[in-house]
């Protein structure tokens, strides 16, 4: 029971120590304030305890004093806000060169797909020192992907892509917890994140059963689901050409614009009537109920791969 006892969690990501500094600062503030108040209470209680020969002195308030002690916490708290906000913005704005993993949560397991297509359940192997981005979605209720050693968590929501990113800085095995209550086996929806040296990671990947590359799987789906009939870059196409599009801005029929990202692709597949691209008829059928979350992820991976593909390859 005492072997692994500690008061501080492992710090294994690029933010861990920065979150810890903020935490320690706040701990110090709380300790100083609480201790100060404790001392004040003890001192005042002893000094002004009731005596038969001394009456309480009535003091009306004092506006300068009120302003003074409102300003101190106000300034302090706003400072803390700014410090924490800066770090928060970094947490949720990933750099461009991330390795992209897909995570699907369902009662009560985590399904993970590597950028190169390998899949695993409840464990996530990653290389140390590389930024990793998780794009996450749930198949049922809300879950939350939480790695305490990385000081990172984000809800995994049905019907909505959320993401988080981190860079592991220390090789080791760390807890993965579901942090949003999701039903009976919530506390067993756990796993581990295994951080490896890059070479080891490559070796590990090589040892995994050769599974399909998500882009390739997506391409096959794109054909089988007849997406090509409308999205073939050829002539008389009924749907927009998808080459070189991902990451760009799309003009919509209602005059607004939207970013062509994972969420937009997903909506286009499941609710095509939701955002109609300008210049096209709303003829695309919905694939709601016909594709699984994993298949949607593969289709997205394929559409994404077309971003760097100008379409020449398809014409041959």
């Amino acid at each position, binding site marked *: 029971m*005492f072997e692994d006892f500690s008061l501080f969690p492992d710090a294994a990501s690029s933010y861990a120590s920065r979150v810890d500094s903020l935490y320690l600062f*706040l701990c110090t503030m709380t300790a100083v304030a609480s201790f100060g108040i404790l001392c004040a*209470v003890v001192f005042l209680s002893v000094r002004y305890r009731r005596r038969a020969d001394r009456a309480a002195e009535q003091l*009306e*308030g004092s506006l300068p004093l009120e302003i003074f002690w409102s300003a101190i916490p106000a300034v302090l708290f706003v400072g803390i806000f700014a410090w924490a906000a800066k770090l*928060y913005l970094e947490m949720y704005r990933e750099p461009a060169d991330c390795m992209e993993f897909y995570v699907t949560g369902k009662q009560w397991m985590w399904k993970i797909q590597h950028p190169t297509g390998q899949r695993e359940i409840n464990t996530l192997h990653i290389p140390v020192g590389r930024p990793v981005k998780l794009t996450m979605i749930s198949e049922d209720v809300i879950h939350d992907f939480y790695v305490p050693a990385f000081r990172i968590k984000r809800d995994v929501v049905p019907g909505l892509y959320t993401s988080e990113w981190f860079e592991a800085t220390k090789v080791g095995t760390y807890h993965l917890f579901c942090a949003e209550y999701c039903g009976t086996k919530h506390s067993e929806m756990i796993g581990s994140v295994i951080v490896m040296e890059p070479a080891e990671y490559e070796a590990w990947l090589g040892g995994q059963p050769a599974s399909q590359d998500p882009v390739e799987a997506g391409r096959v789906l794109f054909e089988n689901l007849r997406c090509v009939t409308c999205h073939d870059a050829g002539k008389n196409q009924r749907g927009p050409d998808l080459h070189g599009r991902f990451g760009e801005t799309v003009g919509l029929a209602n005059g607004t614009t939207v970013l062509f990202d994972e969420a937009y692709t997903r909506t286009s597949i499941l609710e095509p009537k939701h955002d109609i691209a300008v210049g096209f008829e709303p003829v695309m059928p919905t694939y709601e109920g016909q594709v699984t979350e994993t298949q949607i992820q593969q289709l997205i991976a394929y559409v994404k791969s077309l971003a760097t593909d100008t379409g020449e390859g398809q014409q041959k």
Partner: protein
Amino acid sequence: MTTTTAPLPLQAEPREDNYVAAGYGLKSWLLTVDHKRIALLYLMSITVFFCLGGLFALLIRLELLTPQGDLFESEIYNRVFTMHGVFMVFFFLIPSIPAVFGNFLLPLMLGARDVAFPKLNLLSWYLFMTGGLLAMIAMMTGGVDTGWTFYTPYSSTYTNSQVLVTAVGVFIAGFASILTGVNFIATIHKMRAPGLTWFRMPLFVWAHYATSLIMVLGTPVVAVTILLVAIERLFHVGIFDPALGGDPILFQHLFWFYSHPAVYIMILPAMGVMSEIVSCFTRKRIFGYKVVALSSLAIAVLGFLVWGHHMFVSGQSIYAGLVFSLLTMLVAVPSAIKVFNWLATLYRGSIKFDTPMLYALAFIGLFTIGGLTGVFLGALALDVHVHDTYFIVAHFHYVMVGGVVTMYLGALHFWWPKMIGRMYPTFLAKVAAALVFIGFNLTFFPQFLLGYLGMPRRYHVYPEEFQVLNVLSTAGASVLGFGFLLPLCYLLWSIKYGKKVESNPWDACGLEWTTTSPPPKHNFHDVPVVEEEAYDYAKREALRV
């Protein structure tokens, strides 16, 4: 406050026509419209709910003694923590101080014969009991396992526990809260004694005014939200479940729009009690009376603008997160102001350490820690790590138990002689206060550490490295349990055997002390006229020394 009708020191002749003796038999209680009797009805019913909630808490702590789930199945454990939350939040904390002490004291403090709408007041209690009974029925027919927060789509589609019955129970109890709020607002506006201007009102009344505003403005929102969950569950209309075309995060917005302000429904009355006790036992007017009064209103208003701080990792826009975080930091300021003003009241006071004052001093410390750890959670990047861990469990127990329950006990020990006309054994009471303070800290302080280590809340089984702190917490809980049981015993005992008290055993200011203990059916024999400011202890001190 003093009145022209009674000379100093205030001692009215004890008379036999008190509200307790005004009628006998069950019917005289169940059909009463006397605010004091209704307060006692509430006191009895919420005590039952508190015991139920406490029993569930005990089961939780027992289960968490070991990392494995050896006491129950997960299915049961989830129901246990949910029922703990539902009973404690909706059926104990929210009604606690307002429904018992607000009901009992507002008319007395205002010099009125009753609240503005006595029959509505009785209706509130019946609605509350209907809600409570439904929750108990839900408990006995299998319980709920959604957590007291009822997050969708788990609650609306996936769980097969008694969500509907519980939701209807909470919905109905919500109306009790709305009606009580309306009643208090009308009473404070219309029933003040001649001469009792707004800025002569006790701070307890100010706190209840702010609380009532939140009850009236916020509760309908949660009622509607619960109704929507019920509709989705029953008729599969897509509101919150994306599989039906709904939005699960919308639920969180609606839920927290009420449930954050609900925190202030609980804590503002506790702050009101605090002001009464501190001024009485320091023999001083509260330092910065107006600032303390108005800060209650500031909290009520700002409290409605910070709900999104429960959703920093929920998938809500990160820019919304920034705004909510900044506002959260600001709402902490009026609370800090109150703490400073109470401390300043001690300065040059004449302090006596009777039981209520012990609870008040405990409150200052516990509320400071509870409030400042709230700043941890409001700080965006830090919240990402500690959100939904034991850190937040510890934080809100410091506010809800360390703050609200402590002050509820403070109020009970302060006004008990007025309510019952008898005193409890004071030494035992001080022992209980010490047990509560020690037990509480031992239970919840380790949970801050657990949370930062990363132990998620609502975990039935947990990794072994978290055991030491959990054992400490469970040990603390047993001490805390004794601390709560003791008052239950000696207060009950004192009803029959306690020493009879005069009308003003603490020599306190305030109209409620000018009438007999227990007060007569219609509170005052003559309508009091107020000519003094609130907390006019100067005269009493001049007499004492």
